[in-house]
């Protein structure tokens, strides 16, 4: 197990393998996403209460899931990087941050677009929206810290430590915000605790969730490849690679 992991995590091996995997994952992502979009936007029936505008959940809910998922992946990778000094884990954490921030932003934008017809306003200080916003700020903190430090390894270790601190704080922030919003406003959010979802809506939703995961992995691999090349630009294998690519 460890030997395999170390071999996989060596930069040249990772570069080769990820180059082969990324296109496959990308095509799989496209397939599931087209299926999910068809199921969600065409095949699924309109909601009896919300009409057609509920269809935004097929983008909104998976991106909200991804925003948390990617943060946890980022913090996990950072913990691995800090404990075992694994270079690849650093790269994964660094490459995840902008993707996660984008999904968080997407979740916020789609959430407020959905809020306009439903709540009559783009923004409500609802518990979930608020903690999503703070999650976005935490992502910005990770990205900002990483870009502020010149040395790449120091930068990713510092940003990784901050990501881990954020993971400890996210539940606390979420519960405090939830408690705060139940105190401040009435029943605007009870609509969210909808009855169990029908299968014709659940299947496209899950398809979209899988598509978003695949998208993340594809983009992560591509970004990580780029990061690995930049970090290892003075290593022998990168020079050999450049020489080979140049001669072709």
């Amino acid at each position, binding site marked *: 197990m460890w030997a395999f992991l170390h071999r996989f995590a060596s930069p040249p091996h990772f570069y080769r393998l990820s180059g082969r995997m990324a296109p496959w994952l990308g095509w799989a992502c496209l397939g599931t996403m087209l299926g999910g979009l068809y199921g969600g936007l065409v095949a699924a029936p309109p909601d009896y209460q919300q009409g057609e505008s509920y269809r935004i959940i097929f983008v909104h809910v998976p991106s909200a899931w991804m925003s948390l998922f990617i943060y946890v992946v980022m913090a996990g990778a950072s913990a691995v990087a*800090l404990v075992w000094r694994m270079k690849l884990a650093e790269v994964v954490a660094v490459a995840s941050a902008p993707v996660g921030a984008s999904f968080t932003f997407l979740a916020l934008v789609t959430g407020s677009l959905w809020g306009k017809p439903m709540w009559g306003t783009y923004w409500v200080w609802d518990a979930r929206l608020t903690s999503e916003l*703070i999650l976005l700020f935490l992502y910005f903190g990770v990205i900002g810290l990483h870009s502020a430090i010149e040395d790449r390894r120091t930068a990713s*270790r*510092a940003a990784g*430590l901050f990501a881990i*601190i954020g993971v*400890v*704080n996210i539940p*606390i922030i979420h519960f405090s915000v939830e408690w705060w919003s139940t105190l401040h406003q009435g029943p605007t959010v009870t609509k969210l605790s909808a009855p169990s979802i029908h299968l014709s809506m659940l299947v496209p939703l899950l398809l979209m969730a899988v598509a978003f995961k695949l998208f993340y992995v594809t983009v992560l691999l591509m970004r990580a490849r780029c990061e690995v090349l930049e970090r290892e630009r003075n290593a022998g294998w990168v020079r050999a690679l450049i020489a080979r690519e140049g001669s072709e």
Partner: protein
Amino acid sequence: MSAFAAIVRRDLILAVRHRAEAANPLLFFLVVVSLVPLGLSPRREVLALIAPGVVWIGALLATLLSLERMFRTDFEDGSLELMLVSPRPLPLIVLAKILAHWLVTGLPLLAAAPLIALLLGLPAGSLPVLLATLALGTPALSAVGSIGVALTVGLRRGGMLLSLLVLPLYVPVLVFAASAVAAAADGLPASGQLYVLGALAALSFSLAPAAAAAALRISMS
């Protein structure tokens, strides 16, 4: 333990010798809070509604602005490096720095609280709760803030970044402290919020020194 006491003592002496600098957070707090009626409305009922939040946002910003001092001067004159190589456990040293920072910036806010309550028209009955939230909340702010300072201490322009890092982490303290004061102003019991604030303070005091120590080791490597 002697190292702990020595660092607290040293930081307090430094603060006393730079009295004007040490007074800045307090003055900032007073100025920010007194700007609010100018910007919003001096009407009693408006002020009563927003006073708890205003006091706490003022305290938050005052702490934030003074955070950099916790490690910055030590970084510049090299004593931070000596603390890192010292055989004493680094989290203990960081805890001493946090305590000294709180004594210099947090404690004066408590002293100013009655004046602030008067300016914003908080009912006199809510003053004990306001003091309790400040006594429990500002140490947590100093402790959590130490992580942010430790992460940005080596950067030339870390100030804005520091607020981006630290302010989201301050949300729970702000929520519970402001709501405790608001509840007390309405004559409701605030013990629940105070218990949570106490828990947050205990949590941040037990975890933040270790995290800040790790952050210092990364920043100084």
